[in-house]
Protein backbone atom coordinates (compact mmCIF):
# COMPACT_ATOMS: atom_id res chain seq x y z
CA UNK A 1 0.00 0.00 0.00
CA UNK A 2 1.35 3.41 -0.96
CA UNK A 3 1.26 6.03 1.79
CA UNK A 4 1.03 9.79 1.59
CA UNK A 5 0.53 12.20 4.44
CA UNK A 6 -1.92 14.29 2.42
CA UNK A 7 -3.84 13.24 -0.67
CA UNK A 8 -5.73 15.90 -2.59
CA UNK A 9 -8.67 14.74 -4.67
CA UNK A 10 -8.83 16.97 -7.73
CA UNK A 11 -6.13 19.20 -9.20
CA UNK A 12 -8.23 22.23 -10.05
CA UNK A 13 -7.77 25.67 -8.46
CA UNK A 14 -8.85 24.42 -5.03
CA UNK A 15 -6.64 21.34 -5.07
CA UNK A 16 -3.62 23.28 -6.28
CA UNK A 17 -3.98 26.00 -3.63
CA UNK A 18 -4.48 23.38 -0.91
CA UNK A 19 -1.38 21.49 -2.03
CA UNK A 20 0.82 24.58 -2.05
CA UNK A 21 -0.46 25.70 1.33
CA UNK A 22 0.02 22.26 2.89
CA UNK A 23 3.55 22.13 1.53
CA UNK A 24 4.38 25.58 2.84
CA UNK A 25 3.04 24.50 6.23
CA UNK A 26 5.77 21.88 6.40
CA UNK A 27 4.19 18.66 5.12
CA UNK A 28 5.89 17.47 1.95
CA UNK A 29 4.41 14.00 1.47
CA UNK A 30 1.57 15.18 -0.77
CA UNK A 31 -0.13 13.63 -3.81
CA UNK A 32 -2.65 15.32 -6.08
CA UNK A 33 -4.97 12.98 -8.03
CA UNK A 34 -6.44 14.55 -11.15
CA UNK A 35 -8.72 12.86 -13.69
CA UNK A 36 -8.05 15.16 -16.64
CA UNK A 37 -4.91 15.27 -18.79
CA UNK A 38 -3.69 18.50 -17.15
CA UNK A 39 -3.82 20.33 -13.83
CA UNK A 40 -5.97 23.42 -13.51
CA UNK A 41 -9.44 21.92 -13.49
CA UNK A 42 -12.27 23.83 -15.06
CA UNK A 43 -10.06 26.93 -15.48
CA UNK A 44 -8.53 25.25 -18.55
CA UNK A 45 -11.72 25.90 -20.49
CA UNK A 46 -12.48 29.32 -18.94
CA UNK A 47 -10.60 31.31 -21.54
CA UNK A 48 -12.30 34.59 -20.58
CA UNK A 49 -10.74 37.13 -18.21
CA UNK A 50 -11.85 38.35 -14.83
CA UNK A 51 -9.89 35.94 -12.61
CA UNK A 52 -7.35 36.99 -10.00
CA UNK A 53 -8.43 40.56 -9.21
CA UNK A 54 -8.24 39.83 -5.50
CA UNK A 55 -5.39 37.32 -5.46
CA UNK A 56 -2.95 38.86 -7.92
CA UNK A 57 -4.43 42.35 -8.38
CA UNK A 58 -4.48 41.50 -12.09
CA UNK A 59 -7.26 40.48 -14.41
CA UNK A 60 -6.22 37.11 -15.75
CA UNK A 61 -7.87 34.54 -17.96
CA UNK A 62 -8.70 31.14 -16.45
CA UNK A 63 -5.69 29.29 -17.89
CA UNK A 64 -3.35 32.07 -16.75
CA UNK A 65 -4.73 31.94 -13.20
CA UNK A 66 -4.35 28.16 -13.18
CA UNK A 67 -0.76 28.42 -14.42
CA UNK A 68 0.17 30.67 -11.46
CA UNK A 69 -0.72 27.80 -9.15
CA UNK A 70 0.60 25.05 -11.40
CA UNK A 71 3.95 26.87 -11.36
CA UNK A 72 3.91 26.89 -7.56
CA UNK A 73 3.18 23.15 -7.49
CA UNK A 74 5.99 22.47 -9.96
CA UNK A 75 8.46 24.69 -8.10
CA UNK A 76 7.82 22.74 -4.92
CA UNK A 77 7.98 19.44 -6.83
CA UNK A 78 4.67 18.36 -5.33
CA UNK A 79 3.70 14.96 -6.76
CA UNK A 80 0.59 14.55 -8.91
CA UNK A 81 -0.99 11.92 -11.14
CA UNK A 82 -2.98 12.90 -14.21
CA UNK A 83 -5.69 10.95 -16.06
CA UNK A 84 -6.35 9.24 -12.74
CA UNK A 85 -9.91 8.69 -11.56
CA UNK A 86 -10.63 8.13 -7.88
CA UNK A 87 -13.25 5.39 -7.65
CA UNK A 88 -13.75 5.19 -3.93
CA UNK A 89 -12.49 6.48 -0.59
CA UNK A 90 -12.98 4.43 2.55
CA UNK A 91 -13.77 6.01 5.94
CA UNK A 92 -10.29 4.87 6.95
CA UNK A 93 -8.89 7.17 4.25
CA UNK A 94 -7.85 4.45 1.81
CA UNK A 95 -8.21 5.86 -1.68
CA UNK A 96 -8.86 3.52 -4.62
CA UNK A 97 -7.98 5.03 -7.98
CA UNK A 98 -7.35 3.90 -11.53
CA UNK A 99 -5.37 5.00 -14.59
CA UNK A 100 -3.85 3.42 -17.68
CA UNK A 101 -0.26 3.23 -16.42
CA UNK A 102 -0.76 2.00 -12.87
CA UNK A 103 -4.01 0.11 -13.36
CA UNK A 104 -5.98 -0.05 -10.12
CA UNK A 105 -4.13 1.21 -7.07
CA UNK A 106 -4.74 2.05 -3.44
CA UNK A 107 -3.27 4.81 -1.31
CA UNK A 108 -3.43 5.18 2.46
CA UNK A 109 -3.74 8.87 3.26
CA UNK A 110 -2.97 10.51 6.57
CA UNK A 111 -5.29 13.38 5.69
CA UNK A 112 -7.45 14.05 2.66
CA UNK A 113 -8.52 17.32 1.09
CA UNK A 114 -11.65 16.98 -1.03
CA UNK A 115 -11.50 19.41 -3.95
CA UNK A 116 -13.57 17.66 -6.63
CA UNK A 117 -15.46 20.71 -7.79
CA UNK A 118 -18.98 20.56 -9.15
CA UNK A 119 -21.07 19.47 -12.10
CA UNK A 120 -23.90 21.10 -14.04
CA UNK A 121 -27.61 20.46 -13.67
CA UNK A 122 -28.74 18.53 -16.74
CA UNK A 123 -31.83 18.86 -18.94
CA UNK A 124 -33.07 15.63 -17.39
CA UNK A 125 -32.83 16.97 -13.86
CA UNK A 126 -34.77 20.05 -14.98
CA UNK A 127 -37.42 17.77 -16.50
CA UNK A 128 -37.88 20.03 -19.55
CA UNK A 129 -40.60 18.42 -21.69
CA UNK A 130 -40.35 17.79 -25.41
CA UNK A 131 -38.22 15.74 -27.73
CA UNK A 132 -34.73 14.68 -26.77
CA UNK A 133 -32.67 15.65 -29.82
CA UNK A 134 -28.98 16.31 -30.29
CA UNK A 135 -28.13 19.96 -29.70
CA UNK A 136 -29.13 20.28 -26.04
CA UNK A 137 -25.96 20.93 -24.08
CA UNK A 138 -25.12 22.24 -20.67
CA UNK A 139 -23.15 25.47 -21.06
CA UNK A 140 -20.01 23.90 -19.61
CA UNK A 141 -20.02 20.98 -22.03
CA UNK A 142 -20.50 23.42 -24.91
CA UNK A 143 -17.67 25.51 -23.48
CA UNK A 144 -15.37 22.50 -23.53
CA UNK A 145 -16.31 21.67 -27.11
CA UNK A 146 -15.71 25.23 -28.30
CA UNK A 147 -12.66 26.17 -26.27
CA UNK A 148 -10.74 22.92 -26.05
CA UNK A 149 -11.87 20.99 -29.12
CA UNK A 150 -12.45 23.92 -31.50
CA UNK A 151 -15.95 22.75 -32.48
CA UNK A 152 -19.16 24.70 -32.86
CA UNK A 153 -22.01 22.91 -31.09
CA UNK A 154 -24.57 24.96 -33.05
CA UNK A 155 -25.33 28.09 -35.05
CA UNK A 156 -28.65 29.44 -33.70
CA UNK A 157 -28.69 29.34 -29.96
CA UNK A 158 -31.16 29.80 -27.13
CA UNK A 159 -29.75 29.84 -23.61
CA UNK A 160 -31.69 28.90 -20.49
CA UNK A 161 -30.17 30.31 -17.30
CA UNK A 162 -28.46 33.64 -16.77
CA UNK A 163 -25.76 32.38 -14.45
CA UNK A 164 -22.23 33.33 -15.39
CA UNK A 165 -21.55 30.25 -17.51
CA UNK A 166 -24.64 30.95 -19.63
CA UNK A 167 -23.70 34.60 -20.04
CA UNK A 168 -20.09 33.81 -20.90
CA UNK A 169 -21.21 31.27 -23.51
CA UNK A 170 -23.65 33.78 -25.00
CA UNK A 171 -20.67 35.97 -25.81
CA UNK A 172 -18.40 33.10 -26.78
CA UNK A 173 -20.86 31.60 -29.26
CA UNK A 174 -21.55 35.03 -30.75
CA UNK A 175 -17.86 35.74 -31.23
CA UNK A 176 -17.37 32.40 -32.97
CA UNK A 177 -20.10 33.13 -35.50
CA UNK A 178 -23.29 31.81 -33.94
CA UNK A 179 -26.48 33.79 -33.39
CA UNK A 180 -27.66 33.82 -29.80
CA UNK A 181 -31.35 34.69 -29.94
CA UNK A 182 -32.30 35.03 -26.30
CA UNK A 183 -31.25 34.21 -22.76
CA UNK A 184 -34.16 33.08 -20.61
CA UNK A 185 -33.94 33.16 -16.81
CA UNK A 186 -36.43 31.42 -14.51
CA UNK A 187 -36.01 33.83 -11.61
CA UNK A 188 -36.90 37.52 -11.62
CA UNK A 189 -33.20 38.39 -11.40
CA UNK A 190 -30.03 37.18 -13.05
CA UNK A 191 -27.63 34.96 -11.11
CA UNK A 192 -24.59 36.27 -12.94
CA UNK A 193 -22.23 39.16 -12.34
CA UNK A 194 -23.45 42.55 -13.60
CA UNK A 195 -20.27 42.94 -15.65
CA UNK A 196 -21.21 39.80 -17.57
CA UNK A 197 -24.72 41.10 -18.30
CA UNK A 198 -23.12 44.20 -19.82
CA UNK A 199 -20.19 42.57 -21.61
CA UNK A 200 -21.88 39.36 -22.73
CA UNK A 201 -25.46 40.39 -23.45
CA UNK A 202 -25.76 44.16 -23.79
CA UNK A 203 -22.63 44.44 -25.93
CA UNK A 204 -24.23 42.10 -28.47
CA UNK A 205 -27.88 43.16 -28.08
CA UNK A 206 -28.82 39.71 -26.82
CA UNK A 207 -32.18 39.98 -25.02
CA UNK A 208 -32.52 38.71 -21.44
CA UNK A 209 -35.99 37.50 -20.45
CA UNK A 210 -36.35 37.26 -16.70
CA UNK A 211 -39.09 35.09 -15.17
CA UNK A 212 -39.11 32.87 -18.23
CA UNK A 213 -38.35 29.22 -18.82
CA UNK A 214 -38.23 26.69 -21.65
CA UNK A 215 -41.43 24.64 -21.80
CA UNK A 216 -40.87 22.60 -24.94
CA UNK A 217 -38.04 21.38 -27.16
CA UNK A 218 -38.76 20.54 -30.81
CA UNK A 219 -36.84 18.39 -33.20
CA UNK A 220 -36.74 14.62 -33.34
CA UNK A 221 -33.06 14.28 -34.29
CA UNK A 222 -31.53 17.73 -33.86
CA UNK A 223 -33.03 20.72 -32.05
CA UNK A 224 -35.32 22.66 -34.39
CA UNK A 225 -36.85 25.10 -31.96
CA UNK A 226 -37.81 25.81 -28.39
CA UNK A 227 -40.81 27.38 -26.73
CA UNK A 228 -40.33 29.82 -23.88
CA UNK A 229 -43.03 30.94 -21.47
CA UNK A 230 -43.30 33.43 -18.65
CA UNK A 231 -43.55 32.02 -15.11
CA UNK A 232 -45.57 33.15 -12.08
CA UNK A 233 -44.37 33.73 -8.49
CA UNK A 234 -44.46 29.98 -7.97
CA UNK A 235 -42.18 29.62 -11.00
CA UNK A 236 -44.89 27.78 -12.93
CA UNK A 237 -45.36 28.55 -16.63
CA UNK A 238 -48.28 30.91 -17.34
CA UNK A 239 -50.50 29.54 -20.14
CA UNK A 240 -50.83 31.91 -23.06
CA UNK A 241 -47.38 33.51 -22.68
CA UNK A 242 -45.61 31.00 -24.93
CA UNK A 243 -43.11 32.32 -27.47
CA UNK A 244 -41.47 30.13 -30.07
CA UNK A 245 -37.84 30.46 -31.15
CA UNK A 246 -36.34 28.65 -34.12
CA UNK A 247 -32.89 27.40 -33.18
CA UNK A 248 -30.59 24.40 -33.50
CA UNK A 249 -29.07 24.57 -30.04
CA UNK A 250 -30.27 24.94 -26.48
CA UNK A 251 -27.61 25.67 -23.85
CA UNK A 252 -28.46 25.13 -20.21
CA UNK A 253 -26.87 27.10 -17.38
CA UNK A 254 -29.25 26.15 -14.60
CA UNK A 255 -27.18 25.53 -11.56
CA UNK A 256 -24.04 23.83 -10.35
CA UNK A 257 -24.07 20.87 -8.00
CA UNK A 258 -21.08 19.99 -5.82
CA UNK A 259 -19.69 16.58 -6.82
CA UNK A 260 -19.91 14.68 -3.56
CA UNK A 261 -20.35 11.09 -4.71
CA UNK A 262 -16.97 10.15 -3.20
CA UNK A 263 -17.74 12.10 -0.01
CA UNK A 264 -21.10 10.37 0.43
CA UNK A 265 -19.50 7.05 -0.30
CA UNK A 266 -17.12 7.44 2.62
CA UNK A 267 -19.84 8.59 4.99
CA UNK A 268 -19.08 12.32 5.13
CA UNK A 269 -22.17 14.20 6.36
CA UNK A 270 -23.60 16.39 3.63
CA UNK A 271 -25.52 19.65 4.15
CA UNK A 272 -28.73 19.42 2.06
CA UNK A 273 -28.75 23.20 1.57
CA UNK A 274 -25.34 23.35 -0.12
CA UNK A 275 -25.07 19.70 -1.24
CA UNK A 276 -21.56 19.96 0.18
CA UNK A 277 -20.05 18.58 3.39
CA UNK A 278 -20.71 20.11 6.80
CA UNK A 279 -17.36 21.51 7.95
CA UNK A 280 -15.95 23.03 11.10
CA UNK A 281 -13.73 26.09 11.48
CA UNK A 282 -10.79 24.11 10.07
CA UNK A 283 -12.85 23.15 7.00
CA UNK A 284 -12.76 19.62 8.33
CA UNK A 285 -15.71 17.38 7.50
CA UNK A 286 -17.51 15.02 9.85
CA UNK A 287 -14.62 12.58 9.39
CA UNK A 288 -11.51 13.72 11.26
CA UNK A 289 -8.61 14.39 8.90
CA UNK A 290 -10.88 14.82 5.86
CA UNK A 291 -11.10 18.43 4.71
CA UNK A 292 -13.03 20.10 1.91
CA UNK A 293 -12.67 23.33 -0.04
CA UNK A 294 -13.78 25.04 -3.21
CA UNK A 295 -16.85 24.21 -5.26
CA UNK A 296 -17.23 20.75 -3.74
CA UNK A 297 -17.87 22.44 -0.40
CA UNK A 298 -20.17 25.15 -1.73
CA UNK A 299 -20.38 26.63 -5.20
CA UNK A 300 -18.32 29.85 -5.43
CA UNK A 301 -18.56 32.85 -7.76
CA UNK A 302 -14.93 33.98 -7.64
CA UNK A 303 -11.95 31.68 -7.95
CA UNK A 304 -10.00 34.01 -5.66
CA UNK A 305 -12.16 32.93 -2.72
CA UNK A 306 -11.75 29.30 -3.77
CA UNK A 307 -7.98 29.69 -3.54
CA UNK A 308 -8.22 31.40 -0.16
CA UNK A 309 -10.55 28.74 1.23
CA UNK A 310 -8.45 25.91 -0.15
CA UNK A 311 -5.25 27.38 1.25
CA UNK A 312 -6.86 27.32 4.69
CA UNK A 313 -7.92 23.70 4.19
CA UNK A 314 -4.41 22.73 3.09
CA UNK A 315 -2.86 24.44 6.10
CA UNK A 316 -5.28 22.69 8.42
CA UNK A 317 -4.69 19.32 6.80
CA UNK A 318 -0.98 19.83 7.38
CA UNK A 319 -1.64 20.75 11.02
CA UNK A 320 -3.69 17.56 11.40
CA UNK A 321 -0.82 15.49 10.06
CA UNK A 322 1.78 17.25 12.19
CA UNK A 323 -0.27 16.83 15.36
CA UNK A 324 -0.03 13.08 14.86
CA UNK A 325 -3.46 12.79 13.35
CA UNK A 326 -5.05 12.85 16.75
CA UNK A 327 -8.36 14.59 16.93
CA UNK A 328 -8.44 15.52 20.55
CA UNK A 329 -11.38 16.95 22.40
CA UNK A 330 -13.61 19.28 20.46
CA UNK A 331 -16.12 21.75 21.82
CA UNK A 332 -18.51 22.37 18.94
CA UNK A 333 -20.53 25.53 18.66
CA UNK A 334 -23.14 25.59 15.92
CA UNK A 335 -23.69 28.53 13.66
CA UNK A 336 -27.37 29.21 13.03
CA UNK A 337 -28.83 31.32 10.28
CA UNK A 338 -31.94 33.46 10.37
CA UNK A 339 -33.79 35.79 8.05
CA UNK A 340 -31.67 35.77 4.97
CA UNK A 341 -28.58 33.55 4.92
CA UNK A 342 -29.36 30.03 3.76
CA UNK A 343 -26.30 28.37 5.29
CA UNK A 344 -22.82 29.15 6.57
CA UNK A 345 -19.45 27.64 5.83
CA UNK A 346 -18.27 26.59 8.38
CA UNK A 347 -21.34 25.27 10.15
CA UNK A 348 -19.61 24.59 13.46
CA UNK A 349 -16.71 26.25 15.32
CA UNK A 350 -14.53 25.13 18.16
CA UNK A 351 -13.30 28.43 19.66
CA UNK A 352 -10.17 26.75 21.01
CA UNK A 353 -9.13 25.99 17.45
CA UNK A 354 -9.55 29.54 16.18
CA UNK A 355 -6.06 31.00 15.92
CA UNK A 356 -6.58 34.28 14.13
CA UNK A 357 -9.60 35.81 12.46
CA UNK A 358 -12.04 33.39 10.89
CA UNK A 359 -13.85 33.91 7.60
CA UNK A 360 -17.45 32.74 7.52
CA UNK A 361 -19.08 32.59 4.08
CA UNK A 362 -22.77 32.37 3.18
CA UNK A 363 -25.35 33.11 0.51
CA UNK A 364 -28.75 34.74 0.89
CA UNK A 365 -31.86 33.22 -0.60
CA UNK A 366 -33.20 36.31 -2.36
CA UNK A 367 -32.18 39.84 -3.32
CA UNK A 368 -32.00 42.02 -0.20
CA UNK A 369 -31.41 45.79 -0.34
CA UNK A 370 -30.23 48.20 2.34
CA UNK A 371 -30.08 45.70 5.17
CA UNK A 372 -27.42 44.82 7.70
CA UNK A 373 -25.44 41.64 8.06
CA UNK A 374 -25.40 40.86 11.78
CA UNK A 375 -23.54 38.25 13.78
CA UNK A 376 -24.51 37.44 17.34
CA UNK A 377 -22.33 35.64 19.86
CA UNK A 378 -25.04 34.34 22.18
CA UNK A 379 -27.11 37.50 22.72
CA UNK A 380 -24.38 40.01 21.87
CA UNK A 381 -24.35 41.57 18.47
CA UNK A 382 -20.69 41.64 17.45
CA UNK A 383 -21.03 42.47 13.78
CA UNK A 384 -23.44 44.97 12.25
CA UNK A 385 -22.47 45.91 8.72
CA UNK A 386 -24.61 47.76 6.19
CA UNK A 387 -24.88 46.06 2.83
CA UNK A 388 -26.60 48.14 0.14
CA UNK A 389 -27.30 45.01 -1.84
CA UNK A 390 -27.05 41.25 -1.31
CA UNK A 391 -28.05 38.68 -3.93
CA UNK A 392 -28.10 34.88 -4.15
CA UNK A 393 -25.61 35.12 -7.02
CA UNK A 394 -22.94 36.84 -4.88
CA UNK A 395 -21.32 34.90 -2.03
CA UNK A 396 -20.97 36.96 1.17
CA UNK A 397 -18.28 36.87 3.85
CA UNK A 398 -17.98 38.09 7.41
CA UNK A 399 -14.80 38.09 9.44
CA UNK A 400 -15.09 36.78 13.00
CA UNK A 401 -12.33 38.42 14.96
CA UNK A 402 -10.38 36.37 17.49
CA UNK A 403 -11.32 39.05 20.01
CA UNK A 404 -15.01 38.07 19.74
CA UNK A 405 -14.13 34.56 20.87
CA UNK A 406 -11.85 35.78 23.65
CA UNK A 407 -14.61 38.10 24.92
CA UNK A 408 -17.12 35.23 25.08
CA UNK A 409 -15.45 32.38 26.96
CA UNK A 410 -18.74 30.60 27.65
CA UNK A 411 -19.99 30.93 24.07
CA UNK A 412 -22.89 28.60 23.30
CA UNK A 413 -24.26 29.82 20.00
CA UNK A 414 -23.39 32.00 17.00
CA UNK A 415 -26.15 33.41 14.81
CA UNK A 416 -25.76 35.00 11.39
CA UNK A 417 -28.76 37.02 10.28
CA UNK A 418 -29.88 39.92 8.18
CA UNK A 419 -31.66 42.81 9.85
CA UNK A 420 -33.45 45.88 8.60
CA UNK A 421 -31.76 48.39 10.88
Amino acid sequence: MINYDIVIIGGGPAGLAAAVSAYDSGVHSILILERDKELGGILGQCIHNGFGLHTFKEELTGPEYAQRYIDQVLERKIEYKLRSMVLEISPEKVITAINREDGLFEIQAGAIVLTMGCRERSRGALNIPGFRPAGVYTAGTAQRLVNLEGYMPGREVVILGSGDIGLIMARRMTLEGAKVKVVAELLPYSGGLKRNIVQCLNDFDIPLKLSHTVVDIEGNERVEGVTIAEVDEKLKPIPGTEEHYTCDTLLLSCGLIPENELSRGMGVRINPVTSGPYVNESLETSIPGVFAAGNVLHVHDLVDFVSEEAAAAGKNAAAFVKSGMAEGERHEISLSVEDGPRYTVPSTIDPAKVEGNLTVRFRVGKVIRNHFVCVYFDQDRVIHIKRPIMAPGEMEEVLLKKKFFDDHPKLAKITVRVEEA
Partner: protein
Amino acid sequence: MDKKNLICIGCPLGCPLQVTVSDTGEIIKVEGNTCPRGDAYARKELTNPTRIVTSTVRVLGSKNGYVTVSCKTKTDVPKGKIFEVIKDLRGISVSVPIHIGDVIKANVAGTGIDMVATKEIS
Protein backbone atom coordinates in the same frame (compact mmCIF):
# COMPACT_ATOMS: atom_id res chain seq x y z
CA MET B 1 -28.52 67.30 -25.06
CA ASP B 2 -29.21 63.68 -24.41
CA LYS B 3 -29.58 61.48 -21.37
CA LYS B 4 -28.11 57.99 -21.53
CA ASN B 5 -28.68 55.14 -19.04
CA LEU B 6 -25.95 52.71 -18.06
CA ILE B 7 -25.28 50.21 -15.30
CA CYS B 8 -21.92 50.60 -13.61
CA ILE B 9 -19.96 47.34 -13.52
CA GLY B 10 -17.27 48.51 -11.09
CA CYS B 11 -18.66 46.48 -8.17
CA PRO B 12 -21.65 44.23 -7.38
CA LEU B 13 -23.86 47.23 -6.51
CA GLY B 14 -24.47 47.92 -10.20
CA CYS B 15 -25.56 51.55 -9.68
CA PRO B 16 -27.88 52.75 -12.42
CA LEU B 17 -26.19 55.77 -13.97
CA GLN B 18 -27.74 58.64 -15.86
CA VAL B 19 -25.31 60.51 -18.06
CA THR B 20 -26.11 63.83 -19.69
CA VAL B 21 -24.31 64.19 -22.99
CA SER B 22 -24.09 67.36 -25.13
CA ASP B 23 -24.94 67.41 -28.80
CA THR B 24 -21.24 67.30 -29.59
CA GLY B 25 -20.79 64.18 -27.48
CA GLU B 26 -19.23 65.81 -24.45
CA ILE B 27 -20.12 64.45 -21.04
CA ILE B 28 -21.89 67.19 -19.14
CA LYS B 29 -22.74 65.28 -15.98
CA VAL B 30 -22.92 61.81 -14.42
CA GLU B 31 -25.61 61.03 -11.84
CA GLY B 32 -26.58 57.94 -9.84
CA ASN B 33 -23.10 56.74 -8.94
CA THR B 34 -22.30 56.16 -5.28
CA CYS B 35 -18.53 56.34 -5.69
CA PRO B 36 -15.94 57.93 -8.03
CA ARG B 37 -15.45 54.66 -9.94
CA GLY B 38 -18.96 55.01 -11.31
CA ASP B 39 -18.20 58.46 -12.64
CA ALA B 40 -14.97 57.25 -14.29
CA TYR B 41 -16.68 54.19 -15.76
CA ALA B 42 -19.54 56.23 -17.25
CA ARG B 43 -17.18 58.71 -18.84
CA LYS B 44 -15.01 56.03 -20.39
CA GLU B 45 -17.90 53.84 -21.49
CA LEU B 46 -19.60 56.68 -23.32
CA THR B 47 -16.59 58.28 -24.94
CA ASN B 48 -14.20 55.42 -25.56
CA PRO B 49 -15.64 52.07 -24.52
CA THR B 50 -13.00 49.35 -24.57
CA ARG B 51 -12.92 45.62 -23.97
CA ILE B 52 -10.41 42.80 -23.57
CA VAL B 53 -11.15 40.25 -26.29
CA THR B 54 -10.47 36.57 -25.62
CA SER B 55 -10.58 33.76 -28.15
CA THR B 56 -8.84 30.61 -29.32
CA VAL B 57 -6.71 29.68 -32.33
CA ARG B 58 -5.52 26.32 -33.62
CA VAL B 59 -2.35 24.84 -32.27
CA LEU B 60 -0.18 22.32 -34.14
CA GLY B 61 2.18 19.68 -32.86
CA SER B 62 0.92 19.32 -29.31
CA LYS B 63 2.19 16.17 -27.60
CA ASN B 64 -0.79 16.07 -25.33
CA GLY B 65 -3.60 16.24 -27.85
CA TYR B 66 -4.31 19.97 -27.59
CA VAL B 67 -5.87 21.44 -30.73
CA THR B 68 -6.57 24.95 -29.48
CA VAL B 69 -4.68 27.58 -27.52
CA SER B 70 -6.52 30.35 -25.69
CA CYS B 71 -5.48 33.94 -26.26
CA LYS B 72 -6.39 37.50 -25.39
CA THR B 73 -5.72 41.05 -26.48
CA LYS B 74 -2.79 42.15 -24.33
CA THR B 75 -4.76 45.19 -23.17
CA ASP B 76 -8.21 46.49 -23.96
CA VAL B 77 -9.16 47.43 -27.49
CA PRO B 78 -11.97 49.72 -28.72
CA LYS B 79 -15.30 47.98 -28.26
CA GLY B 80 -16.23 48.70 -31.87
CA LYS B 81 -13.30 46.60 -33.09
CA ILE B 82 -14.24 43.34 -31.31
CA PHE B 83 -15.49 41.55 -34.43
CA GLU B 84 -12.58 42.77 -36.52
CA VAL B 85 -10.19 41.33 -33.95
CA ILE B 86 -11.95 37.97 -34.18
CA LYS B 87 -11.92 38.07 -37.98
CA ASP B 88 -8.20 38.75 -37.92
CA LEU B 89 -7.68 35.44 -36.09
CA ARG B 90 -9.31 33.38 -38.79
CA GLY B 91 -7.11 30.67 -40.21
CA ILE B 92 -4.26 31.26 -37.78
CA SER B 93 -2.44 28.20 -36.48
CA VAL B 94 0.50 28.34 -34.16
CA SER B 95 3.03 25.62 -33.43
CA VAL B 96 4.28 24.35 -30.10
CA PRO B 97 5.87 25.27 -27.82
CA ILE B 98 3.53 28.07 -26.75
CA HIS B 99 4.13 30.15 -23.65
CA ILE B 100 1.82 32.59 -21.90
CA GLY B 101 2.47 35.97 -23.48
CA ASP B 102 3.68 34.67 -26.87
CA VAL B 103 2.36 36.87 -29.65
CA ILE B 104 -0.30 35.08 -31.70
CA LYS B 105 -1.04 38.07 -33.91
CA ALA B 106 0.78 41.37 -33.60
CA ASN B 107 -1.21 44.60 -33.96
CA VAL B 108 -4.41 42.61 -34.26
CA ALA B 109 -7.00 44.31 -36.52
CA GLY B 110 -4.77 47.36 -36.65
CA THR B 111 -5.48 48.24 -33.03
CA GLY B 112 -1.80 48.54 -32.17
CA ILE B 113 -2.35 45.80 -29.58
CA ASP B 114 -1.05 42.24 -29.80
CA MET B 115 -3.10 39.09 -29.38
CA VAL B 116 -1.14 36.95 -26.93
CA ALA B 117 -1.34 33.34 -25.79
CA THR B 118 -2.77 32.68 -22.32
CA LYS B 119 -1.83 29.03 -21.98
CA GLU B 120 1.28 26.90 -21.83
CA ILE B 121 1.25 24.19 -24.50
CA SER B 122 4.16 21.87 -25.23
